[in-house]
């Protein structure tokens, strides 16, 4: 048994319940990668975690909730359909590209897409990259603070979503906060605060219009968020 195993002997339950403090979580995930015994225990206990949500008392969601969700879904589906048969094809997961490299050669396509969707009142293109669904920007991640982390900004219609992999938990007592940055202006806070899940994965929707936004940034901030960044950005995605 490896030397570090004893430290984690009882951690599987806490890990699966999401109860490991953030610093311990990252260390346990690293331990799991090399400890078959702990992985086996996690696998053994996972069905109990999957069963827990079914124990709650059933409640009816209000009809208005479905109406709101479906209105947005149908609006986005219409955009996909309007953009052509290739537009609803999800980009291959490993096919990443940098915005700065793709923009020049795709500018004519982008202009055509912008015209196409202008009637729907949508500001962001759907098919800039040869008919693919939306656009993907590979963000710059401070590898000194988040080694191995990868973050992409996916835009589709008017929505933009940050998708992170292998992102470490923020420092104890802090959360990640999303910011927008326009040229010549200070970074503006958004209401989006998040923490990655136990696998280091996270998705965060960027609220509001991206008109004029040149960068989307992520910093770690005190729980509850900040009005101005208190740390250097961990993630920066160039969007213009």
């Amino acid at each position, binding site marked *: 048994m490896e030397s570090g195993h004893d430290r984690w002997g009882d*951690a599987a339950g806490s890990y699966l319940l999401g109860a490991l403090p953030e610093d311990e979580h990252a260390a346990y995930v690293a331990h799991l990668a090399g400890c078959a015994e702990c992985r086996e225990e996690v696998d053994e*206990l996972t069905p*109990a975690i999957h069963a827990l949500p079914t124990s*709650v008392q059933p409640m009816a969601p209000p009809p208005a909730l479905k109406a709101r969700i479906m209105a947005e879904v149908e609006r986005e*589906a219409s955009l996909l359909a309007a953009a052509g048969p290739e537009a609803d094809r999800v980009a291959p997961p490993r096919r990443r590209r940098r915005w700065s490299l793709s923009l020049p050669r795709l500018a004519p396509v982008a202009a055509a897409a912008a015209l196409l969707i202008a009637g729907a009142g949508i500001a962001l293109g759907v098919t800039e990259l040869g008919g693919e669904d939306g656009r993907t920007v590979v963000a710059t991640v401070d590898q000194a603070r988040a080694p191995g982390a990868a973050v992409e900004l996916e835009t589709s219609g008017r929505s933009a979503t940050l998708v992170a992999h292998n992102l470490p938990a923020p420092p104890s007592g802090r959360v990640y906060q999303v910011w927008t940055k326009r040229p010549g202006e200070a970074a503006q806070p958004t209401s989006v605060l998040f923490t990655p899940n136990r696998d280091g994965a996270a998705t965060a929707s960027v609220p509001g219009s991206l008109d004029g936004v040149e960068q989307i940034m992520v910093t770690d901030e005190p729980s509850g968020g900040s009005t101005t960044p208190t740390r250097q950005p961990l993630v920066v995605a160039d969007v213009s």
Partner: protein
Amino acid sequence: MQLLRRGQAPAFEVIYERHSSAAFSLAYRIVGTRNGAEDVSQEAFLNLWRSGARYERARGSVRTWVLGIVHHRAIDYLRRATVHDKRRASDEGIEERFEAAERTDVEVARRDEAQAVRTAMDTLPGEQCQVIELAYFGGFTHTEIAGMLETPVGTIKGRMRLGLKKMRDQLSDGAVMR
């Protein structure tokens, strides 16, 4: 799921119809307010719609996937809204709860599953059930729970592990294992 991947709104609607009650119920159980549960559910389902291609069958059922997203979003909501102290004093009335109508065999099966899980939890020693609920539905870390209960962290972790193992053993021959 293939249709969802292609951006088919009707396919998404089917998934919403199948899982929205469980999703909303879980969100409400965690955040404790109707508005909060709506926010969490909306955020989770739109996330699901936009990321349908990331569903991996090998990692569990669609239901498990949906509820996993809801749970994560709900805990995030708790942390950013700092409503830990408010949610149990919710002004929501129990009149919002309902027993799902037994319209289909699937719903009957789910009610049976829910009962089986509740029974399994009820048979756990109280201190094990308590720490599981505080962690999973309350979003508290084992360190926070240890402080609340004035109990060593190691004991809390042991209760969590043993409680989950007992649940797993009790449910192992049932339909809720996914």
